[in-house]
């Protein structure tokens, strides 16, 4: 496998790997390092790549495990929290823009507080839009368990968002 082959294989999902890493590690730099690490691991094992049935799912599993390991390790003590890169559509008023920006940041910080398992599921389902079969392969869980966890996560987010929206409590 040449470098060009590898790049074209990895291209479609490297952003997904990065976003999952960022969801778990929060800091952009940490997530970039993690993604780099994952891609290098894939590259070093490129002879075996053709044996994998689904390289994308395999990479996502790898990313999940790698990030959870990172979080457990001591180096994770100096993880820093970095702002999300939200871009607002420019045609609403400034007031609305500020408000929208704020609430979008809230969503990010609410997801931040979820347990890691739910974080991963929300990331894979709501942001990357994988179907349940794929997620169950990536996480090695059955679909019902995933649905339950996802439902819990969504309800928590909804609840907190409603509270924030109605009372302005963070």
């Amino acid at each position, binding site marked *: 496998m040449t470098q060009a082959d590898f790049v074209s294989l990895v291209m479609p999902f490297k952003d997904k790997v990065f976003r999952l890493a960022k969801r778990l590690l929060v800091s952009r730099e940490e997530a970039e390092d993690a993604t780099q690490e994952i891609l290098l691991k894939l*590259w070093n094992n490129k002879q075996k790549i053709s044996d994998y049935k689904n390289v994308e799912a395999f990479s996502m599993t790898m990313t999940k495990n790698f990030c959870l390991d990172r979080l457990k390790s001591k180096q994770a003590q100096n993880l820093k929290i970095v702002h999300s890169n939200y871009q607002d559509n420019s045609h609403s008023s400034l007031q609305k823009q500020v408000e929208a920006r704020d609430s979008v940041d809230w969503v990010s910080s609410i997801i931040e507080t979820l347990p890691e398992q739910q974080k991963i599921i929300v990331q894979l389902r709501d942001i990357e839009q994988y179907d349940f079969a794929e997620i169950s392969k990536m996480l090695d869980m059955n679909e019902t368990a995933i649905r339950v966890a996802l439902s819990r996560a969504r309800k928590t987010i909804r609840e907190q968002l409603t509270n924030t929206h109605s009372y302005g409590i963070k």
Partner: protein
Amino acid sequence: MVLNNIENLLEKYDNAETTLQEEAQLRAYFSSEDVAPHLEHYKPLFVYFTSTQQEAFTKDVPLNTKKKTRLYQWISVAAVAVLMLGIMIPQVWDNSPKTLADYTPEEQELYNKTKNALAFMSANFNEGTSSLNVLEMASDNLNAGIYKASFVSEFGKTTNKLLK
């Protein structure tokens, strides 16, 4: 009608029963400008999902590191080969004489003379050692005398006790 539909979808969404198509429908609805006021608080959620999807990994990954390490590996192999040659070459090309017969008659004569001289010296040394044996005997006799003298001092001690 649309609103009703959306509310149903949201209900299903919360129970994680929506399909990907239905979720796309929800995202489309909430990213539009006219969202029903009582559903306003869902908006940031879907806007967030859509916006986060845009985030991309921009860092370059150095994929060429593998080649460098290969070169280093070969350098070590080359170093070992050079070392081995260094040890082997003197042994293989070594044509210096191995036995006495390989030497010229002059050298052989010289060797025999030296050998004789050394043998002569060693014989003299042996003689010297045997004469040293006499000294050893003298020292033995001396020790015996000292032992006997100790009786005398013992006798002195007892006489002193008596005199007291």
